[in-house]
């Protein structure tokens, strides 16, 4: 079953002569374990789509269903609660709290959800270990590299055991190597840990880690490309490309 079902989403900002259509008639489904990249030029509606999927904004028309919950039926309080429990957000600028350790940062969402602090910290440690930061628990953000800070942010996104992870340009502030590591980790979040992951990116290299790429143009889906599973790395294509490069 699809964890994310978006039907015919349209978002219009303003009204009358000044109305701007940010998104028109976009439908998208993302299953558990699936990693989807959303690409397109600036202003194509990528961020608007992510905000609508994450319940951060409400569509003008159309509907979003997350793990069986119809977002339109929820009032603002219940929407906030659903966001906290069902959705993990990952941002370009990590958004960690500077005075808190990695463990405290990762534990924060569940502490806010009234889980006992000791239990919250135990869960945070578990997720930090899974993202490869088991030996950095007491470090503050300024003692961590950009890639490590983003790992903390991913652990924080997962600590509430959300069904869905939404990432907005998660590698936009990282060097090439850290970007590859974060993209691999998001792939793992989907393929191994069973979350539905949607990532907005402008970086082709990072989009190529996904299972599927959705191309937005002028607020509408222009195309979709399903990428073959990784295990079927196609050596023939390498050969083609080498020839192209060297003849």
């Amino acid at each position: 079953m699809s964890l994310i079902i978006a039907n015919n989403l349209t978002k219009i900002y303003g009204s009358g002569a000044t109305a701007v259509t940010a998104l028109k008639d976009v439908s998208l489904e993302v299953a558990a374990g699936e990693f989807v990249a959303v690409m397109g030029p600036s202003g194509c509606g990528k961020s608007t789509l992510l905000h609508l999927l994450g319940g951060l904004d409400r569509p003008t028309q159309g509907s979003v269903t997350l793990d069986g919950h119809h977002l339109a039926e929820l009032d603002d309080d219940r929407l906030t609660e659903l966001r906290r429990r069902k959705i993990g957000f990952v941002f370009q600028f990590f958004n960690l709290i500077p005075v808190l350790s990695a463990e405290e940062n990762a534990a924060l969402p569940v502490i806010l959800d009234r889980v006992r602090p000791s239990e919250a910290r135990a869960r945070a440690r578990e997720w930090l270990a899974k993202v490869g930061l088991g030996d950095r628990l007491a470090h503050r953000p300024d003692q961590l590299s950009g890639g490590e800070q983003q790992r903390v942010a991913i652990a924080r996104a997962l600590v509430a055991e959300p069904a869905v992870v939404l990432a907005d340009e998660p590698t936009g502030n990282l060097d090439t190597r850290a970007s590859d590591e974060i993209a691999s980790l998001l792939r793992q979040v989907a393929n191994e840990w069973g979350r539905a992951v949607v990532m907005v990116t402008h970086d082709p290299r990072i989009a190529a880690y996904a299972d599927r790429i959705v191309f937005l143009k002028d607020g509408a889906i222009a195309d979709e490309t399903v990428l073959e599973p990784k295990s079927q790395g196609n050596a023939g294509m390498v050969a083609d490309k080498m020839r192209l490069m060297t003849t």
Partner: protein
Amino acid sequence: MSVRNAILGLLAQRPRHGYELRLAFEALVGGEAVWEVKPAQIYTTLARLEEAGLVRQASAAQEGGPEKRVYALTPLGEAELADWFETGLSEAHQRDEFFIKLMLSLENPNANPYRVIQAQRSRLYQELHAQTALRNQANPRRELAQIFLLDKVIMHLEADLRWLDMIEGRLDEIRRQPMPAPEVKPRGRPRKEDSHHE
């Protein structure tokens, strides 16, 4: 490139016969799946190199099987190799089948250039996905050379994808310009009155 220069480089390490050269070449680029060379290509190249005086037959190896010709570099071959090492290579990016396809699709009523671009983009993403997987499977402790080769392919694919975005964004501008066409040259002798104008 030519496998030719690779053969010169491999023979500079030590004399080898054709089969050894083929294996050494394929090991260098990361396996025959990456870049397969046909035996015939090795042998014709060796024959041409010998004819040009760049390699010579050094001796014949006989390891129980049929005789194999072992080749070595000549001083002329060493000079050619040194020249190769010191000269930058130009890559023929201008010869691009996709570019030709796109230009022709602009004036073909049965083709949609946006679809042509999207088909190419989809294909490039498939490749990028596959290359990235191969690169991430390679072991940096033992296969760093192959990783760098794959990185090069990956970076080229990225550049190609960015170029597609750029050209897609300006397709209408391209359409407003005339298609590149050959200059019309008068055939035969120029007429006499034309020469007066010069």
